[in-house]
């Protein structure tokens, strides 16, 4: 009797994972952001198989044509189809965003955790290095690193990742500092939990939300940075397309009213960045068990 009651009540309590999903799905801006991100991911990875045009095929007879039924987004200065290039370029942009943020979090996060949790001289060393890097503007640092590493999309992603790492170090350190003085961390030490488990089970879950939000925001910045590096010729190398290098070319023809070359990649950057930002905000709310 009691047992049956117990199981029935237990079933009524939703599992934590499905609750996070439920909250995420009820958050309208998170859904919009998620849809945008998923849509661009689909475009980037499925689009090339669907679109008939070759993004690098030039044509002297089709130079700088306005959008038409045969070329929906028009053609660029070498007669290449802008739609095909936007679709192929999405892959470079999304990859740059995801990979460079992954690099930044996996370098900056652990350093910040170590600095914040253990403190002392190790914190002093890590913090001074972080501050030195933060003294340089993010984009300038990325460009400098990119030019040292050499011009390629991979190097651009590494450069952006390293340049963004101190942002995560500082954030993680500050969060770890705040959380480690909580009573529950002292309680964890009181039961004899080793430091590594305290960090994994107590610190990380409690600082996860702000880092995730920061990651989506930096994702947006990284996409812009990749565009900037490609714009300068340090990222994706011609003739392979990327939104940044397309903007770079397109800007030369804006004054002649040939807007399509720069507008479509620009819209792509805008929507992807917007999508990541909205998704990040939604995730932050959904991951907090205290908010219903």
């Amino acid at each position, binding site marked *: 009797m009691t047992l049956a*009651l*117990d199981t029935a*009540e*237990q079933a009524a*309590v939703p*599992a*934590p994972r499905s609750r996070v999903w439920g909250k995420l799905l009820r958050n309208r801006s998170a859904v919009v952001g998620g849809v945008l991100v998923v849509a661009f991911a689909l475009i980037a990875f499925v689009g090339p198989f669907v679109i008939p045009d070759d993004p690098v095929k030039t044509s002297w007879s089709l130079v700088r044509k306005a959008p038409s039924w045969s070329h929906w987004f028009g053609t660029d200065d070498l007669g290449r189809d802008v739609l095909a290039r936007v679709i192929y370029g999405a892959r470079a942009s999304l990859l740059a965003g995801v990979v460079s943020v992954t690099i930044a979090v996996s370098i900056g996060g652990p350093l910040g955790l170590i600095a914040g949790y253990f403190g002392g001289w190790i914190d002093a060393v890590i913090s001074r290095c972080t501050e030195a890097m933060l003294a340089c503007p993010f984009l300038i640092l990325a460009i400098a690193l990119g030019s040292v590493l050499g011009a390629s999309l991979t190097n651009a992603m590494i450069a952006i990742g390293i340049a963004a790492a101190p942002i995560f170090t500082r954030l993680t350190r500050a969060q770890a500092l705040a959380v480690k003085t*909580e*009573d*529950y961390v*002292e*309680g*964890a*030490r*009181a*039961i*004899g*939990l*080793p430091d590594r*488990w305290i960090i994994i*089970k*107590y610190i990380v*879950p*409690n600082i996860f939300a702000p880092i995730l939000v920061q990651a989506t925001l930096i994702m947006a910045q990284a996409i812009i940075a990749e565009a900037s590096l490609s714009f300068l010729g340090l990222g994706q190398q011609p003739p392979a397309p990327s939104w940044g290098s397309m903007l770079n070319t397109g800007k030369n023809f804006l004054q002649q009213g040939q807007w399509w070359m720069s507008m479509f990649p620009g819209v792509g950057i805008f929507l992807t960045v917007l999508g990541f930002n909205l998704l990040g905000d939604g995730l932050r709310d959904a991951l907090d*068990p*205290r908010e219903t």
Partner: protein
Amino acid sequence: MSAILQAEGLKKYFKTGGGLFSKPTVVRAVDGVSFAVQKGETLAIVGESGCGKSTVGRMLMRLIEPTAGTVTFEGQDLGALGETGLRKLRGAMQMVFQDPFSSLNPRMTVADIVGEPLWLHGEGSARERREKTLELLRTVGLRPDLADRYPHEFSGGQRQRIGIARALASSPKLVIGDEPVSALDVSIQAQVINLLEDLKERFALTLIIIAHDLAVIRHMSDRVIVMYLGSIVEVAPTGPLYSEPLHPYTRALLSAIPLPVPGHHAERKLLEGDIPSPANPPSGCRFHTRCPYAQKRCVDEVPALRDAGAGRMAACHFFEDLPPETAGRALGAADSPAKARRLALYKQFRTLRDTQGPEAVLRASTPTMEAVTRGEQSS
């Protein structure tokens, strides 16, 4: 009875401030504290906030390293143990924290929180641990079907029960409660105190309760240590301490307990001034700046903690010579015969209600009310 835990000359100095051109200020949070805890007793450590009582509790657990002094638990010097040895001992000593709203990890379910010590010590299979966790929840009076919820879904009293269940999970011998009820509502305080007392009986625990509330301490503890500004001023069994406090500071503390008697006007010996800064403690007896009986000697000479007989100790040069305290003032005057009768009747009501239900009270109420009236008239 044998000592389960012994503290010898515990000191904790914190350095604050200090830069390139200035010396850091040394705060003597705890300055030479020694005591022994007997197996099975409930020892209370009381004092105003800032007197170092929580720091002592944390040093006993080795959550903070003492500047000097040793803690011996069951004959083992905690300071001499390495990190691994200490970790093994951690199960035997547990702590219940003050604030139930910050002492539980908000990202872990109740089952994970309570079961973590079991997991850490690698006890049994996942299923056995789960069962033991649910059993622990029942033990502290929580419904086991709430095990998969998060701490924020519980009230303060329930959270404190979760904290207690977690402390019990590693089958400790000694539990240190750092103001375990002071963050709770008064009505909930009683429940949690009763729970702690029940558990103490049931699991043969030794309790150290750190508190600033003498009324709470009185119900629970066998012995009381009174601290002032980082050192012990008096140690005594609970009864004698309340009826006949030796140290002027203890007297002042006791006279500050409000007495719930209408029309009672006690002359209160309220302490004047603030508690001095532990960064710059007064010379001699640390209490002399606020002591109504202070003399020249108190300014110059630090009083030792002297034996006062019957298991009592006090750190005061003059405790034998002080004017006799109006004994047991905190207890109030003896009850008048009429009041005693009313109280007896009330107790009768309670037992009737608790044993036979509210209907029995209703049935019995008429004659009993007459008895009350009769009692009133005859007195």
